[in-house]
């Protein structure tokens, strides 16, 4: 029997549905995650999220557990955090990660620090789902990934799946985790399909995945950039270069071991990241490897990232803003010279 395939969007929806059936302390909150709340029944659950990811959950679980919220991210995300600290396990949606600026305090000063400040006497099992990424002509405020910032803050965890399979397993892990987890959904991946088991399963936080094995160079890439790295690897293999593609999946905690092992084997590192280059995941990985696997490196480690600029709107600009497989392949060739 052929394996069942789901899209990334469907995998997320299924993870939420299965977890909500299992545990009735799980609630969902967010702007128009149902849509039409307060309207006559036939107009409710109209959207299921702005890109349809939570569609149908309101209909199944009702208004007590699927809460449309006003546009007040500090208010409702803070409420999710307060609810998590007092016995629920909320999954709140921050529609776009670029909106973190209107609620960051609740994330980095409250969710992230409560447990520490209270000497371990609190737990905050909240999951924040948020959309990341460029490619939809959504311009500077709606196209960032910015997960580097959320990874920076101690007390937060941060994951960014690149496939439907990982999305389901990581989301279930995030929901069950007793710490605040930022779950980053790349909006250009919602249509990507992969085999996804029907039953519930967990991809543990902090475990990287080798998406392609190779011996000549290690490509570390995140979310949509995993696909860019894989395309580059395909291209490179035509000239006999075997790239290993490591997908950390979880940015914080980070599976340092898998990355370091790969580099110890390949002796070369290229990081492919959609975040901007200063104080970002790319610098994080390069510096990790430079410190801990320095003696294994046969060439300077490389970063392929967008430039230190906002995301431009114009399609021609946006397309060349993002790292391309060609750029990655060039960077790899650079390390082999």
């Amino acid at each position, binding site marked *: 029997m052929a394996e069942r395939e789901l899209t990334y969007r469907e995998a997320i929806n299924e993870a939420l549905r299965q977890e909500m059936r299992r545990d009735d302390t799980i609630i969902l909150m967010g702007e128009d995650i149902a849509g*039409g709340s307060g309207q006559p029944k036939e107009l409710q659950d109209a959207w299921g999220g702005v890109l349809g990811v939570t569609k149908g959950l309101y209909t199944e679980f009702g208004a007590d557990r699927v809460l449309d919220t006003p546009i007040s991210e500090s208010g409702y995300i803070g409420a999710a955090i307060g609810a998590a600290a007092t016995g629920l396990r909320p999954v709140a949606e921050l529609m776009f990660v670029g909106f973190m600026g209107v609620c960051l305090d609740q994330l980095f000063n409250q969710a992230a620090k409560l447990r520490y400040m209270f000497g371990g006497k609190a737990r905050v099992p909240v999951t924040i789902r948020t959309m990341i990424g460029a490619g939809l002509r959504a311009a500077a405020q709606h196209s960032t990934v910015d997960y580097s910032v959320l990874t920076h803050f101690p007390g937060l965890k941060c994951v960014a799946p690149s496939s439907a399979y990982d999305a389901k397993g990581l989301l279930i892990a995030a929901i069950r985790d007793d710490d605040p987890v930022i779950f980053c959904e790349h909006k250009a991946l919602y249509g990507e399909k992969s085999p996804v088991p029907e039953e519930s399963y967990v991809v543990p936080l902090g475990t990287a995945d080798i998406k392609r094995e190779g011996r000549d160079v290690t490509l570390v890439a995140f979310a949509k950039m995993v696909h860019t790295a894989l395309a580059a690897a395909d291209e490179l293999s035509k000239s006999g270069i075997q790239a290993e593609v490591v997908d950390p999946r979880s940015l914080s905690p980070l599976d340092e071991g898998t990355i370091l092992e790969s580099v110890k084997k390949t002796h070369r590192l290229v990081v492919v990241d959609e975040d901007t280059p200063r104080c970002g995941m790319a610098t994080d990985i390069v510096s990790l490897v430079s410190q801990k696997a320095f003696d294994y490196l046969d060439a300077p480690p490389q970063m392929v990232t967008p430039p230190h600029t906002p995301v*431009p709107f114009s399609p021609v600009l946006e397309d060349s803003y993002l790292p391309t497989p060609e750029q990655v392949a060039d960077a790899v060739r650079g390390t082999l010279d």
Partner: protein
Amino acid sequence: MHLKREKALWVYERMVLIRKFEDKVHDLFSAGKIPGFVHLYAGEEAVAVGVCAHFRTDDFLTSTHRGHGHCIAKGVEVRGMMAELFGKATGSCKGKGGSMHIADVEKGMLGANGIVGGGAPLACGAALTARVKKTDQVTACFFGDGGASQGTFHEALNLASIWKLPVIFVCENNLYAEASPVKYTLNVENVADRAAGYGVPGVIADGMSFFDVYEKAGEAVRRARAGEGPTLIEAKTYRFYGHFEGDPVNYRPKDEEQAYRKRDPITDFKQKVLAKKLLKADDLEKIEKETQAEVDAALEFAESSPFPKLEEILTDVYVNYP
């Protein structure tokens, strides 16, 4: 409030220009010619034009994701706007901003804003500039019923109230924030009811009627120019299209939509100026033709314009970069 013939011509021209621009954009989006997130202003024309009819070029406004109407009301050129939506080098923002960031600072249009509530503090800033420089410029801050739940609205209104800043907060209550009805997101009847909590006048206007908005905005602008502080105006209005292009609009009752379509602010204005004999049918027809021609020309301009050069990715991040 009395309207001079010249102003009435301007009002009709702006309202119709907005409508024709938005209708065209709607078609272009459906045809796959315009990318991105596009939020249309059609139906709400009386609000932007009713406020901006009191404005000078050196007055300011801050806008929202639904910014095209504010731009046109403030005098931004539609060719640059259309080119911007296409991501062309000749766009108002050189193609770098798109619909959600369309702006024209020279014209006092301080930008659409992709962040709900993002413009309110900026509006206070523009007003502060006027206060410090001792000019009588005023600033309008447009926002939606959804935006009234954001913390920035509260902070900005408080700031404007204690500093008596010349800001007019204009809530465009079109009954929905995306797919969420305002009766769900607010526990009060009117956003204007919040004004009392800041010691500021809270005024309700019929956002489908130019004359009502014009009158109420007039008093607010007078107050602001005279240094008497901010006003909160809530204009009850309705958007004719979906939240954004592509929205199936499956959360609104159809009869509600029809009822509002019947209250079309442009038709309303037309009937009133004809009845009052302020303008003639000829005047209106001429304007309708001219604005259509302007929009068509804008489209041609946009389509024939070049895309920005790739080097443009790297420019305009900073004024000074070592």
